[in-house]
């Protein structure tokens, strides 16, 4: 799942392997130089002292000879140390790549062993934190939505007993829906932030999905039939969030286009809104980001666009906000075909 396959992946792992062997050689050389160098220095000092303090029995060649013997003897010592550091390093890297069960081999009682032990303790802590996170995700949805359900139900019962002005009632309904959506978005953002929780992957008809979401918001849709493997719910949300964002902040004229660009799929959502200043375009995708001067009342400054970015990235893609010629913005999502297909 996590590892890509195909020529691209072969190339990647080949490069990674190459980088490893270079690092390994360099590490070995460093250790070797330190060991041999220190012995050489020592024997040179010994030779020097015997030279000056008159012990003529020593040949001046003796330190050189000793150094030679030592350098040969140091070979296996350096090698062993290199190997142990190498093993520790691969455990650290495995953890970094998401293998939570990765632990280092604790042997001996030198600094390397201490380091390995403290690495293992950190790994334990990370695993425990993630397990807690997963539990939280499973329960938070239930715990947060129970009171919302009661609130919604209570409001309905109340409205039957007393007369609440319709505008106020609708406002309360909307607030509850907004809270519910925020709960959903926060939980989703949290799930997407955890690479250990895998995405669903199945063939998705992107053109069909886009046509459906555009129809929902009365946006113009131009698309070529295009299929990709991904999480259909997440890809739908990506499209919906972008379209809703364009509707909300980009004026009445919204259109979407799905383009087959060879190696990748390009999705453009275009609007004729006031546009985004260049300096703010990148920050737009931060959670709860609100452009300067934008009021609370307009709503929708939540996680919408940051979720779009997370979803694009989890599918190996990117999203950017570009300035549109003639006014307005283009939100461009690029999804690589290869990584969508293999994950």
């Amino acid at each position, binding site marked *: 799942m996590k590892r890509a396959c195909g020529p691209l992946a072969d190339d990647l792992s080949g490069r990674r392997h190459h980088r490893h062997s270079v690092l390994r050689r360099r590490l070995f050389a460093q250790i070797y130089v330190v060991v041999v160098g220190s012995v050489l220095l020592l024997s040179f000092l010994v030779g020097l002292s015997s030279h000056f303090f008159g012990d003529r029995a020593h040949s001046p060649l003796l330190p050189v000879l000793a150094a030679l013997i030592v350098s040969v003897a140091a070979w296996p010592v350096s090698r062993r140390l290199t190997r142990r550091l190498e093993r520790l390093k691969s455990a650290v890297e495995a953890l970094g790549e998401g293998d939570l069960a990765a632990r280092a081999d604790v042997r001996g009682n030198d600094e390397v062993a201490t380091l390995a032990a403290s690495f293992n303790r950190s790994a334990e802590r990370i695993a425990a934190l993630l397990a807690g996170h997963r539990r939280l995700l499973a329960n938070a949805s239930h715990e947060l939505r129970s009171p919302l359900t*009661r609130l*919604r*139900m209570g409001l309905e019962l109340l409205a039957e007993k007393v007369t609440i002005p319709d505008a106020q009632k609708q406002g309360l309904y909307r607030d509850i829906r907004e809270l519910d959506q925020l709960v959903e978005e926060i939980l989703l953002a949290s799930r997407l932030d955890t690479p250990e929780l895998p995405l669903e992957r199945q063939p998705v008809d992107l*053109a*069909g999905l886009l046509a*459906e979401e555009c129809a929902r918001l009365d946006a113009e849709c131009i698309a070529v039939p295009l299929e990709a493997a991904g999480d259909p*719910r997440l890809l739908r949300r990506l499209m919906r969030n972008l379209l809703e964002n364009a509707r909300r902040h980009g004026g009445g004229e919204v259109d979407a286009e799905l383009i087959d660009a060879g190696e990748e799929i390009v999705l453009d959502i275009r609007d004729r809104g006031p546009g985004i200043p260049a300096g703010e375009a990148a920050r737009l995708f931060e959670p709860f980001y609100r452009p300067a001067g934008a009021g609370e009342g307009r709503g929708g400054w939540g996680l919408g666009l940051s979720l779009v970015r997370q979803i694009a990235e989890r599918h190996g893609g990117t999203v950017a906000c570009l300035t549109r010629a003639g006014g307005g913005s283009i939100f461009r999502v690029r999804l690589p075909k290869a990584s969508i297909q293999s994950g």
Partner: protein
Amino acid sequence: MTTPILLIDDDERLAEMLTAYLGEAGYAVTAAHTGKAGMALAENGRWALILLDLMLPDADGLDLCRALRGGSAGAVPILMLTARGDAMDRVLGLEIGADDYLAKPFEPRELRARIKAVLRRGRGTEGGLGVLRFGRLEIDRDARQLRVDGDVREVTGYQFDLLVAMAQHSGRVLSREQLLDLVKGEPLDAFDRSIDVHVSRLRAAIEDNPKAPRRIITLRGAGYVFARKQDEEMP
């Protein structure tokens, strides 16, 4: 006459509210707050419907649903209530024998409508082709009937087959040629646009606003898409 409903939900205050709310609509709700108590009540009573929460303190709603199906209350329709909105769970809920599914927080009116719909359908579609449901639209392949909000909408036999073919490929772009292949029978020419005429009749029958279709969508230059998510707030 009141209709007996068994509610299995650990949220006692919500159960109280639901009892009052559904009581006004003519349902007699009995609440159980644990899976064990719910199971015992289900086995020892006569129920028209069971409302089942997915997360219970002592049992997993899915397991309980399976157990209910296997027990003496196996013929009673089950409507699942849950906080999880995952599509996965949605499918799973129906696969293991729930008749419908509603995500919390739900609109109380929608709960009432779903209860009504489930009671009307009852159980026992097994053996038949079954009903395809898309939001408020029901495509009943056994009765060869289209319903929106329970109201029957009239279409011709060919149009019904065309809609079934689209519904079975919901969410996918289908070209006119593909549609013609899927609906055998009446020989139609792909170029004479008669399929478009049938589509516009179908739209008139099932769309809330045929001018701005939400169920059968045209993708210019490619064909038609039958929407997978209809009448829904969230994906």
